[in-house]
């Protein structure tokens, strides 16, 4: 009988190819060789980050990338892990149209076992199916749109409460204090989404709601602030990101608004507190995350982050840190269970039960936090420091 070369070779498989490289370098001296990265016992896996690293939203991406970098650095210091982790980055500029190319460069790298990102909901919707087809697990640290979990992405996960969870919680709290609320969004996917859910919950709670949008590229918030004051609203919600919120806070103070000012997770950062200065004092934030001053792990995270990047952690850095750690744990679990492939890693991510600095995280079948999981906390800018007021449903 003749041999069947094709079947013979096919049996080697992808793993075989990796092993080949490993073998090639095993007899090398320590000073180098082509496969030094993966040689010896220290196998190396890659976790990829996809997000905006250039363009208008680059700061957000950099915050997250830094968080991921810190997690990777800490993992590589941990000798008990049994493997090394590399972080690769892929820039999608936060633009759904540029996301497919960014995703393709991740997918084509065989060593990538999981993805942190994409940072934005739009980019996520554009590429999650591609990652799903490639079997790569995605752990999303910041794409908060309330509908992603319904779109049937196979390998997609999110580690924080989405807009539909965070918004209503904030709205219920506002309704306790004000009957007329001014809801402003920045016309971005995030701002508009979360503001819409806030507004609809407020209406359910019987409040009068005025909704307006102000483009995120605006710098002069004078007219809109004047409008808030004139409307006689007792509270104002801003859905958007920190830098714009800081400008808005200043304009609002200048216009003499005295009511409640509250915003979401996108604003809760040092960019806001330093940018707004005194005008930001007394702003409230809702966030589906733990209090960084209470949880000890979060404290050490803040210290390590500041030491590493010479700047305090900012919006979504902790989430990215947790997302990266979830992936590292999943790789570890997959390794312990036998084989590390994209699909086994994804299986392990599905089984995640992880307590990170932003909270206790596990995933439902749709990839989102299971219903009821993830408390939304209320925070306040107290003299330039962000302080937790605890669970928003209990908060005053």
């Amino acid at each position, binding site marked *: 009988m003749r041999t069947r070369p094709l079947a013979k070779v096919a049996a080697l498989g992808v793993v075989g190819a990796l092993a080949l490289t490993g073998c090639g370098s095993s007899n090398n001296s320590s000073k180098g060789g082509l496969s030094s990265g993966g040689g010896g016992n220290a196998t190396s896996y890659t976790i990829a980050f996809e997000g905006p690293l250039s363009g208008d939203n680059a*700061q957000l991406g950099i915050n997250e990338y830094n968080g991921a970098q810190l997690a990777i650095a800490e993992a590589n210091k941990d000798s008990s892990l049994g493997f090394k982790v590399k972080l690769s980055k892929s820039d999608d500029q936060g633009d759904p149209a540029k996301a497919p190319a960014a995703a393709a460069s991740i997918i084509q790298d065989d060593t990538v076992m999981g993805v942190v990102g994409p940072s934005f909901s739009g980019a996520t919707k554009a590429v999650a199916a591609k990652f799903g087809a490639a079997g790569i697990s995605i752990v999303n640290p910041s794409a908060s749109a309330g509908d992603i979990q319904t779109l049937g992405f196979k390998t997609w996960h999110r580690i924080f409460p989405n807009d539909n969870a965070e918004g209503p919680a904030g709205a219920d709290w506002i309704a306790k204090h004000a009957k007329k609320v001014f809801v402003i969004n920045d*016309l971005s996917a995030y701002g508009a989404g979360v503001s819409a859910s806030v507004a609809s919950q407020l209406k359910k709670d019987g409040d009068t709601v005025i909704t*307006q949008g*102000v483009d995120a590229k605006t710098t*002069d918030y*004078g007219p809109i602030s*004047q409008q808030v004051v*004139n409307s006689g609203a007792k509270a104002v919600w801003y859905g958007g990101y920190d830098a714009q919120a800081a*400008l808005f806070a200043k304009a609002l103070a200048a216009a003499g608004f005295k009511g409640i000012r509250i915003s979401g997770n996108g604003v809760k950062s040092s960019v806001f507190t330093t940018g707004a200065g005194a005008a930001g004092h007394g702003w409230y934030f809702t966030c589906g995350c733990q209090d960084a001053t209470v949880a000890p792990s979060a404290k050490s995270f803040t210290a390590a982050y500041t030491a590493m990047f010479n700047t305090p952690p900012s919006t979504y850095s902790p989430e990215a840190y947790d997302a990266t750690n979830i992936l590292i744990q999943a790789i570890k679990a997959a390794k312990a269970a036998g084989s590390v492939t994209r699909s086994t890693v994804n299986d392990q991510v599905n089984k995640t039960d992880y307590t990170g600095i932003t909270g206790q995280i596990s995933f439902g079948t749709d990839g989102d936090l299971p219903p009821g999981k993830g408390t939304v906390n209320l925070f306040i800018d107290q003299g330039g420091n962000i302080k937790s007021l605890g669970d928003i449903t209990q908060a005053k």
Partner: protein
Amino acid sequence: MTDFLNFLIAGLTRGSIYALIALGYTLVYGVLQLINFAHSEVFMSGAFGSLIIVQSVIGRGVHHLPWYGVTGVLLLGLTSGALIGAIVAWGLERVAYRPLRKRGAPKLAFLISAIGMSFFLSQLAGKLFNRFSDNNFPTYYNVNKHLFDIRGVHISLIQTIMIVSAVVMMLFLDTLVTHTKLGKSIRGVAEDAQTAALMGINIDKTISRTFIIGGALGGAAGFLFGSAFTVYNTMGFIPGVKAFAAAVLGGIGNIRGAMLGGLLLGVVESLVPTAPWVGGHTWIGTQWTDVVAFVVLVLVLMFRPTGILGERLGRAA
């Protein structure tokens, strides 16, 4: 009425910034018949330049200066902003315009080289400075202090500063163009460059100086804008586009037109979407601000195809 006046003042504040930037567009358009797309980066450079210079002279830790301190900060900021703006604008002309002029490039090539320059400058600034997360002027004084407060109508310090310095600079420019020798040569080049050259006007120098003047105004506007709001590397883009619209609205190439167009656009943006006279915040809504601005622009241009005051530098009104 109170509301109306408050919105009007907010609009005038916004408009005076537009007008200051629009002057730069208009001046360059006057002499070269080109949109200087990189002018927004001149504005941005003025903001960064004044921020760095003011901070290094006065320091970051100083707060609540007395009135003479405030004046000092203002003068320093305006002059440093103007200086940096002028330098950048001069360099811009030398690098992105003059070589093309010498080669007789088509008109669009200028536009594209200016766009290239704009990308370059804003991203270089981003690379060098944008890691300053605290890109704000320190609170040397309370910018939002109400200077006047008459029956609910209030004007804050920064609004006063912005409107007054804008008006002063515009008057200065108007005088400069109508009454000085440099102004005459600028107008000459604007009217007919070839004839002007025959009359002994050095075209290169005049164009260079036009850029410098426009740059100085843009840089000063950058300081005003930066001290009122914030400073970042792409801060010039939106005000730049709006100021360009304002210049066209008033009649591009026309100095008084730029002033008028800027103020008008600011007021329209502030008043129309909010519509205080109908007492309603729900009339049009601020999410339509830019649409309102552009629709007004289109309407004006449909009835006056060369803007409110018409074209032509020096033939104002």
